[in-house]
């Protein structure tokens, strides 16, 4: 997990209409929801599986519901949120494709962020060293990483196309959460972290 996530939070906050209802999947210590409450007056809940993170959410005054995302979002009715947000968690769940569909079942729009495994540094690392790449966005060794479904910008967009998910907005950042021209022009190569806002395409 990157040390300073606030630029990512700022970008997400810019995408969210004030006063919305937000569900945050894998909310960690609840900082994003707290930020959205402060900047966008949202209401909502964080879902989290880790007991120590749940404690921190309660300490931070965030409504948190202990949930295993691998079991889906069955506690939530269809269309009960304006946005379902998931930051840096997509790659850590067992069924990322099913979870994306769940997000769009309970929410009108989804927002995800994930580390782009096709970033040039990671490609170079693998090419030169022949070992699983590590970076500030991917700080874990291959054997103890929670990230079991790493993907690339192209993979994600291909999955969206396949599942009738319409991408409304994309933002990509470099390793230091700065937007750069190269990353915008060639995201699959230069994006360290990818941010997407999406919705279900009407048939």
């Amino acid at each position: 997990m990157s040390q300073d996530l606030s630029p990512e939070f700022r970008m997400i906050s810019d995408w969210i209409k004030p006063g919305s209802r937000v569900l945050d999947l894998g909310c960690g210590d609840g900082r994003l929801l707290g930020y959205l409450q402060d900047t966008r007056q949202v209401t909502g809940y964080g879902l989290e599986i880790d007991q120590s993170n749940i404690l921190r959410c309660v300490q931070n005054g965030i409504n948190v519901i202990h949930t295993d995302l691998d079991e889906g979002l069955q506690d939530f009715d269809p269309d009960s949120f304006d946005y379902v947000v998931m930051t840096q968690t997509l790659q850590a769940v067992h069924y990322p494709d099913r979870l994306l569909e769940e997000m769009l079942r309970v929410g009108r729009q989804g927002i995800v962020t994930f580390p782009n495994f096709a970033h040039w540094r990671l490609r170079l690392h693998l090419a030169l060293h022949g070992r699983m790449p590590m970076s500030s966005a991917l700080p874990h060794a291959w054997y103890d990483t929670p990230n079991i479904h790493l993907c690339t910008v192209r993979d994600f967009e291909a999955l969206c196309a396949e599942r009738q998910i319409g991408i409304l907005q994309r933002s990509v950042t470099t390793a230091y959460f700065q937007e750069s021209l190269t990353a915008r022009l060639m995201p699959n190569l230069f994006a360290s972290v990818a941010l997407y806002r999406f919705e279900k395409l009407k048939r």
Partner: protein
Amino acid sequence: MSQDFPADSVGLVTPRQQHFDQPLELDCGQSLPEFDLVYESYGTLNEDRSNAILVAHALSGSHHAAGYHAGAHKPGWWEACIGPGKPIDTNRFFVVCSNNLGGCHGSTGPLSTNPLTGRPYGAAFPIVTVRDWVRSQARLADALGIQRWAAVIGGSLGGMQAMQWAIDYPDRIAHAVVIAGAPKLSAQNIAFNEVARQAILTDPEFHEGHYADEGVIPRRGLALARMIGHITYLSDDAMRAKFGRELREGKINFNYEVEFQVESYLRHQGQSFVDRFDATTYLLMTKALDYFDPAANFDDDLSRALAGVKAGFLVLSFTSDWRFPPSRSREIVKALLDTDKSVSYADIVAHHGHDAFLMPVPEYLGIFSAYMDRVGREVGA
């Protein structure tokens, strides 16, 4: 008193009694012409009377939730959670716990004198419900000058009272903490209660509830009821860890005396319970559990039952609780989510079974404390 108390205990406590001379209408259609509630309180009520916490007790509990009675070695039943620096911090909160109506520790119940007959109520004591308790507790709040509880908190049957408070008095409760609870009993739960009741009702000393008049106690039935209850409060793992298949004399004796340690433990639990609890109270409490179903008046729709709730909720369950398993707590959470209520939920990893809510499990106390800190900050406590 030369007794030394732990620094994080409220120390020596003395119960108080509140008399109510206005009749209390009960769900069963009867009414109590007058009644008493015995209660304890810990901590100090602040000037604007905003820091009051109501702790509701479970099946076999009483008003003695924390601290020590004079000469007693065992503290109240929730000593793990109530005291200076504990989740329900008595340095910040004014904590009230009353003995429920129908109880056997001083509040009006089967052992009390029926003012109409001059004899103990016994079996004539009307069946009371969770709503009746909440109604009587509201009277107690009035008597204490408490308009609004900062929180109503309870485990198991106590959690049901916290829920009922939030439903019946939305403006008089800021937070509800429901621990190891359920929105209503399952058929299996009711079945266990029925076996316990049958043990009592079929004891030859029961005398159709008038055992006090006969000068006897249905000891065997009550002990059996407690034994079956106790089995359901523990987890398989907890029992295995505590007793395994350990034999008292190290060998099998091929008879029906106590051979396994777990048998000895259960018999002890049953026997000691008889000395501190009343059989008819046990019948009443299990009935109140069976009847609790706030959704029943709302087409069995719990989210509708909770739609008017204004309190923030903390719901906690325990992984090894099979009496009220985590899935039951999730039903409460789901109903609150359906109508966008303020709710947090955690399923605490604990091996103690249903009884975990009484235990000092660090993760449990941590989340509970953090939530109560929020409650305290809201009321300036």
